[in-house]
């Protein structure tokens, strides 16, 4: 696929995140306060639907529409997942935003996504500078 097709795909995903209220900081704070369970339902039904779709893809030979192989290998487990996961979660709670929703927020006209996006870029950059020394595998996907 060409860059434009990926941009269009990202736009669809951003639209869905927004319609799911995943870009709504109140919904994220409400999820962690257990006062608004909407996003638990979104995430749960998304996982179930994605798992069903992936199972169908596998059954049909894991090929794209044009016949190429799809890489469906899960990410390997390593201990950094635990530490990184908790660090990510702390940031998720502080900012009530995650990497995808911050970008969609910007398109919604929420300018306060700018410090979040700047922070994510800086954190990504620092991790990549420290990764070899910290012996953490610089993971490649998402």
């Amino acid at each position, binding site marked *: 696929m060409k860059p434009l097709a990926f941009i269009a795909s990202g736009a669809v995903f951003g639209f869905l995140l927004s319609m799911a209220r995943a870009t709504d900081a109140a919904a994220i704070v409400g*999820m962690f306060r257990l006062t608004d369970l909407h996003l638990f339902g979104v995430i749960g039904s998304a996982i179930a639907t994605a798992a069903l779709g992936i199972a169908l893809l596998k059954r049909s030979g894991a090929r794209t529409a044009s016949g190429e192989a799809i890489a469906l290998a899960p990410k390997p487990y390593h201990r950094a997942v635990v530490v990184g996961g908790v660090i990510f979660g702390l940031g998720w709670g502080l*900012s009530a935003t995650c990497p995808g929703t911050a*970008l969609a927020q910007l398109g919604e006209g929420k300018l306060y996504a700018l410090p979040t996006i700047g922070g994510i870029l800086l954190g990504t950059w620092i991790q990549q500078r420290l990764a070899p020394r910290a012996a953490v595998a610089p993971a490649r996907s998402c």
Partner: protein
Amino acid sequence: MQNWPFWIAGMALGAFVPLFAWTSGKLLGISSGYAEACALHKPAGSERWKLWFALGLPLGGLAATLARGEGEVASTSAALVEHFHVGNAGQYLLLALGGLLVGYGSRTAGGCTSGHSIVGIALGAKSSLVATIGFMLGGFAATWLLIALAGARA
């Protein structure tokens, strides 16, 4: 158009994952798009598409805002101010510091809420399940710490 009920939104997001894989041959993820943005000075490799995908997200947010008939520009995260009793400076500090941890943490864990929590768990990956448990634990801890701090100042 109103926002969708959780199950419609969830099913649409979930269905997008295999549809994107079927058309592009790739598993979607966002946090690695930020890594690509940090690697712009290097020649484009096989991961450059992740940057393009990430750059599409704001367009989708704009489309959803227009579909809902909204469109006002906001410079204050009302939810942070309301729940955590922070002022403007405190709010931007939370957003920037939170973003920093999100960026560092997602690259350390090898994924974020999309690549691990939706795609990875749907693939049955142990790493993604563990990462997501970490995301949730961290999220609850940070939220309740901020609430406690807001209460202590009140």
